[in-house]
């Protein structure tokens, strides 16, 4: 409270212009003279303007999906793993005379470089990734997809969890082009725990598409029938 025994409780209403007209007028005179209410009202005076910067619907502010933490840490772990592989020597050199040791080290370094480069060539190198979020807000399903460029098109490594588990149910991954054309990456099933790990290939190239969708696989009927969409996400190149 402002410390003013007579008008301290009115300061909030005065600042928000929510008092009755008579009270507003009385407070206007009072804050000019009161050593408690005057500073109190001046400190609170910027608040209405700040409150005007938002809509009431903005409260509470949007919260980040818990899946993002997983993605951040996963990305960190993968990069750290690559760094460690690049740094760590594969075996230690035996003790040998200094020059011979140096020469041997050069040979080993050259061999290691070749091995590591070759390994890196073979390692999956995603050119894009996507976090797929539920199309329906009530679904707990979430997935992450990494897209690698391969001669046949795009290889997608998909990791999903929270998928509905029903006997015989299959899912299908789609890459959606900006022209609205859906290109199937193939089908997969979830385990009994709702989790799925799949490597699929779609006949699309980097930049051809910006969206990935997981649908419940259905027998193809009318053209354009992709089955009900469960997860959807935009590619991050």
């Amino acid at each position, binding site marked *: 409270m402002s410390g003013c025994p007579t008008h301290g*409780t009115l300061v*909030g209403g005065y600042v928000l212009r929510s008092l009755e007209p008579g009270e507003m007028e009385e407070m206007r005179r009072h804050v000019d003279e009161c050593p408690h209410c005057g500073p109190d009202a001046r400190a609170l005076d910027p608040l209405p303007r700040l409150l005007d910067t938002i809509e009431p619907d903005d409260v509470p502010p949007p919260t980040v999906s818990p899946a993002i*933490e997983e993605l951040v840490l996963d*990305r960190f772990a993968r990069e750290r793993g690559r760094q460690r592989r690049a740094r760590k020597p594969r075996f230690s050199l035996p003790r040998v005379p200094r020059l011979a040791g140096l020469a041997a080290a050069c040979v080993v370094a050259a061999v290691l470089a070749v091995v590591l480069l070759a390994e890196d060539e073979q390692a999956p190198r995603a050119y894009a990734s996507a976090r797929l979020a539920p199309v329906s807000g009530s679904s707990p399903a979430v997935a992450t997809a990494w897209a690698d460029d391969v001669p046949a098109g795009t290889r997608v490594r998909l990791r999903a969890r929270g998928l509905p588990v029903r006997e015989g149910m299959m899912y299908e991954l789609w890459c959606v082009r900006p022209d609205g054309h859906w290109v199937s990456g193939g089908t997969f099933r979830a385990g009994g725990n709702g989790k799925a790990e799949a490597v699929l290939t779609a006949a699309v190239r980097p930049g051809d598409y910006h969206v990935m969708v997981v649908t419940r696989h259905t027998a193809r009927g009318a053209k354009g029938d992709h089955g009900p969409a469960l997860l959807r996400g935009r590619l991050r190149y």
Partner: protein
Amino acid sequence: MAPSDATLVERLPTDDSGDELRELYRRYSAELFGFACNALGDRELAEEVVQDVFARAWRHAADYDARRASVRTWLYTIARNRIVDARRRASVRPGLAPDTEPETQGEIDRALEDAVLRWQVAAALARLSPEHREVIRLAHYGGLSLREISERKGIPLGTVKSRTSYALRTLRLIMDEMEVRA
């Protein structure tokens, strides 16, 4: 005692467990996401920005200089740059292009400052008790007088008056703590 923000960043280059990054993420992801969401108006893009901010934070942690900026400022600077990139990308994608002319740097800076402010105000309001938030909502956004609030909610008028004053003072304290600049 919990490590300071600067300590967490200093440890990032040698952190193989991910613990330091996780802690930094938990301290700042919510507000950075709110900031990005406000600036971009798109949850998915905002989530991408948050991911990028932390990826850049660990990659460039060795470049962080605590004498030049707080960790918070440093992360916001990274976020700001990612947001500018995201807006540029969005503007060249069909269907996502804004209807407006390309923005100047000054306009972008102002828009980002506004986005930070909006997030801070919303976050400050969210920290109030439901009772305090409600009187502010009804009086400021609803345009009701304190007497009308009293009648509508069946609460004594004296209680509504003191609650409103407490609510605003608490909000002021929270905003001061968050370093909200009017």
